[in-house]
């Protein structure tokens, strides 16, 4: 049995199809990711998982229960971190957790000890009596995650957990999420940061325009579609002739190449260094020439012809 099972899951609203008959399974105790640009249908999908948006058609089972039939039971065993921090600004930090615990019918004494524990875990213990508005963006995010854990959930859904955070705050959140996973909590996250996906996810799906394009382990996806390395080429004047020349001279060394805007991406068969060498021998001026490790973003580029941040 899996934590989440979706079969031909579809969501339409306002005459638009936001999710187009997708299939996926989230295993227990793994960190599963939805990677894709804004508007890909990631949030719509998780909204259906935590029973906010009704399913238009298809099957969706969460913790073994049908979302249509058992929303309250499902929600009582989930933790939800929405895209926007919706902490209660009328309540102080600790109160936010305690009042939230009431919605799960957690006895006051249990709620209190659990809330204090969570504040400790998220480095917020000294802020317990403070107003929520006084917290920094990173602290608010950590408090929102803490709140999602108040009911000891089996599955935690994180919608863009670190969007809008500075790098330091982001790393702190990642560190805590990894510790949660070590404790056996199943995590499901959406993100458009490839680094986040590769840092945290055991498995992920790449989503675009309501569809799942690929599924697998981050490293496997990169190896399968791209290889080890990528040579990024910026031609001074992006002319067809120049592009053709590059492709002609390096083609035998490449698995594939991709033109995106002003950039040319070359995916070497083996050593990227050899491709670089071949390029430098060409009578062309490059605005940049970069050999770097292949990433999920390259996979995304290849699958959609567009970047993730677009």
């Amino acid at each position, binding site marked *: 049995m899996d934590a989440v099972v979706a079969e031909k899951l579809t969501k339409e609203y306002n005459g638009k199809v936001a999710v187009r008959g997708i299939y996926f399974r989230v295993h227990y105790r793994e960190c599963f990711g939805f990677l894709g640009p804004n508007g890909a249908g990631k949030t719509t999908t998780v909204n259906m998982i935590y029973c906010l948006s009704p399913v238009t058609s298809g099957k969706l089972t969460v913790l073994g229960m049908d979302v249509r039939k058992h929303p309250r039971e499902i929600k009582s065993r989930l933790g939800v971190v929405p895209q926007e921090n919706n902490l209660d600004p009328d309540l102080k930090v600790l109160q936010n957790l305690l009042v939230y615990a009431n*919605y799960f019918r957690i006895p006051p004494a249990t709620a209190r000890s659990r809330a204090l524990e969570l504040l400790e875990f998220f480095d917020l213990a000294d802020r317990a009596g403070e107003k929520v508005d006084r917290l920094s963006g990173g602290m608010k995010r950590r408090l929102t995650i803490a709140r999602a854990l108040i009911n000891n959930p089996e599955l935690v859904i994180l919608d863009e957990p670190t969007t809008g955070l500075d790098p330091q705050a982001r790393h702190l959140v990642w560190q805590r999420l990894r510790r949660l996973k070590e404790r056996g909590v199943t995590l499901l996250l959406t993100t458009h940061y490839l680094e986040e996906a590769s840092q945290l996810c055991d498995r992920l799906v790449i989503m675009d325009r309501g569809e799942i394009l690929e599924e697998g382990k981050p490293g496997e996806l990169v190896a399968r579609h791209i290889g080890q390395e990528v040579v990024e080429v910026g031609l001074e004047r992006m002319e067809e002739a120049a592009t053709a020349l590059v492709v002609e001279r390096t083609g035998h060394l490449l698995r594939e190449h991709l033109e995106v805007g002003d950039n040319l991406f070359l995916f070497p068969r083996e050593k990227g260094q050899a491709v670089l060498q071949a390029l430098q021998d060409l009578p062309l001026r490059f605005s940049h020439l970069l050999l770097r490790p292949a990433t999920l973003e390259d996979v995304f580029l290849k699958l959609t012809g567009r970047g993730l941040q677009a």
Partner: protein
Amino acid sequence: MRFPDVSPLVWQVLRRHLIVFSRNWVTNLTFNFFEPLLYITALGVGLGAYVQDMEGLPYLHYLAPGLVASSAMFATTYECTYGTFVRMEFQKTFHAMVATPVSIDDVIVAEILYGTFKSVLYGTVILLVILVLGLVTSPWALLVPPVLAVAGFLFAILSMIWTGLVPNMENFNYFFSLIMTPLFLFSGVFFPLSGLPKIMQDLAWLSPLYHVVNLVRSLVLGQVHPGLLGDFLWLSVLAAVLFPLSLKLIRRLIIK
């Protein structure tokens, strides 16, 4: 129309509102307390000195019970328009709640009950004030709080319907100037409607506040008659009929 999905968790949501209320009740109460007191002083005492007896009563005695009803109405309608909207739209409190076992219907019902609570509380406070001023002349006044509860429930529903229909801040001004103020002026708070043209009297019958004023004034003055059951029934039936509509309209703003 879907059957309401309401559970005992309504109480937990209402409790959240009461916790927030308990943190700044002094400010809240003072504000709502001050305004009716101004009316009592300016109109009841000031204007009243020049006004003949109204329906056989000194003007202050006539006016005071009406203000109990209108204060209750305003307390509820402010809460369930501006208050509800801020929680729903700016604070996203509803979204946070429905991610827990709480259902959207639980949230909406708790909003309505919080509005009802405010009606009872603010109306009763004014009732106590006029009691101290010697303007309450009958023990029937003990029935005023339950009347305020039904009235509050109805006004909360009406406010939620408006909020559901035109969910933005600017439109609440219309609600108050186009609907609440005319209700306030033409529901028998300040003067009996018998002097108005027939059409105005008929229109007044459609005003919920008119029925609340009838009930509160009669109870405060001990002029109890079977016709009051009609007013009570009018309020209860309208509330029962409109309740599902308020659920439906707010639900569609959250559940997409």
